[in-house]
């Protein structure tokens, strides 16, 4: 279940070599221990989200390498990266990115495709996750009808459908009140207890000062702040 994440001299540029070139991540060396909750903090534009997209293999670095369990993954051919991403990471996006027009259950099942197990087995797994997060009665509701907390729990259930060892959440409490943020941290503690590595970005003290957090990594101008 546990995965060691290592970043070696990672840099990421946008508009490289063109006007407006921006180094969002500028030389980061970092090792994230498995089974821990790590929070990346820093002001807006500091490179936290870019860093998470690089770790989650949603983007490739401009320079440097990323390793998962010792295997260099940032240079893998795309077909392997897709498979690795599917098996290793679950994503909870800041705006949750639920697919409107689909039900809660369908949204949760979606990341399992196109390699999904038989439909009944997948559906049972999705229903178990929804029941676990208190969304059982809402499984057939359209996602646009959900409250903020329900949408977030749906997004978390969706992130867990492939049983990933690493869960990545980008500003997960940005749109939630304190009560829902606390409930989210309870879920994070549960994920850690299951042995999963949890990587969060947040500039919410409620999150990074929470007891469940093992490590805080401060980022500014694309670099780690010592």
């Amino acid at each position: 279940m546990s995965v060691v994440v290592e970043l070696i001299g990672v840099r990421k540029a946008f508009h490289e070599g063109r006007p407006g070139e921006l180094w969002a991540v500028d030389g980061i060396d970092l090792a994230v221990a498995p089974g821990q909750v790590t929070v990346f903090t820093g002001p807006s534009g500091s490179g936290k989200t870019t860093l998470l997209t690089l770790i989650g293999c949603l983007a490739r670095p401009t320079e440097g390498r990323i390793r998962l369990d010792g295997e260099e993954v940032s240079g893998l051919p795309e077909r392997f990266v897709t498979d690795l991403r599917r098996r290793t990471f679950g994503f909870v996006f800041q705006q949750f990115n639920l697919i409107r027009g689909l039900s809660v259950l369908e949204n949760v099942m979606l990341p399992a495709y196109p390699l999904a197990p038989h439909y009944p087995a997948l559906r049972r797994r999705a229903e178990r996750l929804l029941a676990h997060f208190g969304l059982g009665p809402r499984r057939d509701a359209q996602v646009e009808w959900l409250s903020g907390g329900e949408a977030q729990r749906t997004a978390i259930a969706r992130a867990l459908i492939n049983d990933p060892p690493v869960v990545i959440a980008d500003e997960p409490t940005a749109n939630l009140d304190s009560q829902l943020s606390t409930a989210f941290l309870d879920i994070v503690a549960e994920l850690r207890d299951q042995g999963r590595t949890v990587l969060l970005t947040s500039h919410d003290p409620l999150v990074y000062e929470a007891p469940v957090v093992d490590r805080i990594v401060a980022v500014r101008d694309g670099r780690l702040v010592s």
Partner: protein
Amino acid sequence: MLFQPAIMALLLVDAITLALLLPAALFAIQLLRHWDRNSGHARQIRLERRTALVTTGVALLSGVQGLALLLLVFTADALSVQFVGAMCAVGSFNVNAWGFPALLLRMALFFFAAAWLVMHHLDRQARDYPLIRARHALLLVIAPVALLAVLAQLAWFLGLRSDVITSCCGSLFSPGGATVAAELAALSPLPAMVGFYLVLGATLLVGAYYWRRRRGLTLFALLGSAAFPVAIAAVIAFVSLYIYEHPHHHCPFCLLKAEYGYIGYGLYLPLFGASAIAFGLGLTRPFAHIGSLRQVMAAAVPRVVGIATALFLLFTLLVAWISWHSNLILLS
């Protein structure tokens, strides 16, 4: 003469081939100089990104080369009605000095492109690009061959004059001549048959042996590659005679005509496909010691060998069937 659909299509294929292949060859030089999988340098990352794009383009044009070869032969055959003295593709190719060089270079391009596809097929199944250097080195062979093939074909097209009296297969494949074609036509049927069935039989046996035991890949590649010239010699020496039911008509191109049920396509498609696969496996074999490739080859090559063996078997059975059903008696 240029403004014919088939010729326009071939010129378009050539333009696309050169437009993709020449930049790919320049990229290959960069890659061969700077590729270092262990480096996290920006240049290495750029190479990794661009190789995905270049590979996609080269795979596309390599796949098209088989169709281009087919279209070239079909076009030459179709054009034969426009030249005095031409009765099949041979007459068209003989209209000027560039016809047969264009055909032979197009065939060479097909085999190299197919070998590249075999390498690509194996390489893409490994996580660490084990054949990337070999694939890009091969591009440096393919690019000049492609350039020469395109230029020769263009020279042939530009030199097509309908007022030229050309010579056709009757003179080229006549046993009395001093050309390779004439010498092949002069081969006695019996030794040609013995040689053909020995080489093809050995290829099939080694292919089947590899399929069962996973041994003998090098021998299969060698035999499979050698099977191509042997098979072409056999077509000229005796298969064509059985098809035409005529003891002196050795042309390997008239087989492509409707009068003979387009039997040539049935013969050549499996032969070219199987030989190209064997050739590709032969070029890949020296790299089989690379760790990740060894695993990939163990999993993927039996299937590839199986396809090639099945195609060789189809070709051999077709030759045997033709020989059996012909009304011509070559061997008493």
